[in-house]
């Protein structure tokens, strides 16, 4: 096979406060590779950096260091109006991106893709009453089957959220304080003490 579907390479985002003596208030660091199409579950407390990670992958947020390669293409070097052809961020039901445009399009690369390769679902509304969960999970499977990479970000607060993650995800990322923990199975994931602490009563 050619390039990995996603390579997050030495990615760092620092937020600082103060002009003269800036103090770092938050730092996200990520370095991982996804070789093949997959459904990846992303979990972590609010404010841990999940959405920042998604924004860095879609290129709507600029990293302090490192790069994101989507099938070999550096997302942050692609024209703003074509970045969502590589990676698309779904905020619940609709999609919003605000790209800070700092370079003219002709200096940048084309996406080379019509339909997004990486699909990041940020806390979709799951409701056991309306039946849409089934349709959404089938859609994630379909995307994966068509060679796409799916990230499903959830902040589980009900037991069925864990059922969803267990059913659909083949690997997991746990984000806490800007650090990522990776797991290749649900069992491995919940073997980590910080994850057990985070999920608390849902695991019992």
């Amino acid at each position, binding site marked *: 096979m050619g390039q990995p579907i996603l390579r997050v390479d030495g990615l760092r985002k620092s937020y600082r406060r103060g002009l003269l003596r800036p103090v770092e208030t938050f730092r996200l660091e990520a370095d991982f590779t996804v070789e093949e199409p997959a459904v990846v579950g992303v979990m972590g407390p609010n404010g841990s950096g999940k959405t920042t990670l998604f924004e860095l992958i879609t290129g709507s947020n600029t990293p302090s260091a490192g790069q994101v390669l989507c099938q070999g293409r550096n997302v942050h070097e692609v024209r703003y109006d074509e970045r969502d052809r590589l990676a698309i961020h779904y905020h619940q039901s609709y*999609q919003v991106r605000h790209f800070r445009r700092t370079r003219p399009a002709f200096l940048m690369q084309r996406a080379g893709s019509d*339909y*997004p390769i990486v699909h990041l679902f940020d806390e979709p509304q799951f409701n056991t009453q309306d*039946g849409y969960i*089934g349709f959404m999970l*089938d*859609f994630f499977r379909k995307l994966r089957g068509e060679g796409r990479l799916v990230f499903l970000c959830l902040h589980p607060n009900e037991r069925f959220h864990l059922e969803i993650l267990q059913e659909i995800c083949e690997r997991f990322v746990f984000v806490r304080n800007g650090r990522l923990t990776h797991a290749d199975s649900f069992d491995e994931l919940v073997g980590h003490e910080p994850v057990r602490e985070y999920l608390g009563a849902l695991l019992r």
Partner: protein
Amino acid sequence: MALFEARGLHKRFGDQVVLEEINLAFEAGSLSGIMGPNGAGKTTCFNVLTGRYRPDRGSVRFDGDDITGWAPHRIVRRGISRSFQIMNLFDEYSALDNVVVALPSVRSRSFDVLHAIDADSEAQDRAETILDRVGLRGRERVNVRSLSYGERRALEIGVALATDPRLLFVDEPTAGLGTGATARLAELIQELKRHTTIVMIEHDMRFLFGLADRISVIHWGQVIAEGTPDELRENPWVRRSNLGGLA
């Protein structure tokens, strides 16, 4: 071949993708349902299908013609009609007048049509037949303002039928209706289905699953699931939901 087919529809408003690769096919003589959560892009999709918005990419075909980007009135003339989620009726006029002014034979005349209507018995007959079809027999002379909400919905569909469409789009017909009115509307649509190909956006899943031959589920501006009501109901998560209990 399907009577109506949309392929690879894509629509963006500014930075926001509202439709992403929409593929839909509606067979002649069928009732196709479109459902999806709020903000999923259903109404935008309808607006692209019926010519109100031009897609950025993709094509719409009707009965052999590529109608992508055609003006709405041209699409209507070609045989596609649409009833709206927000009703477009003249409140000060009777149910009959509302249908008469929508008739192509009347529309093609001057703008001052309402004064000439009474004299046109052919148009009146035609409008009466339509009102009968939508269950408004005996209500022809009632002002729209005095009709019940359910009757206005039926009249809205009657207005859409005035152009004698081969394909009728209906946008959320049960919105705001009570149980009784919804049941009457289901009967009306069941009856219309015998003569007209129908595409219906609907929020009320019970209503839609009871009437549609095929259903497309739209979410995130895409068709995320598609099938007959029975096929969609087989999904274990659907069976666990309220929808699972529907007969």
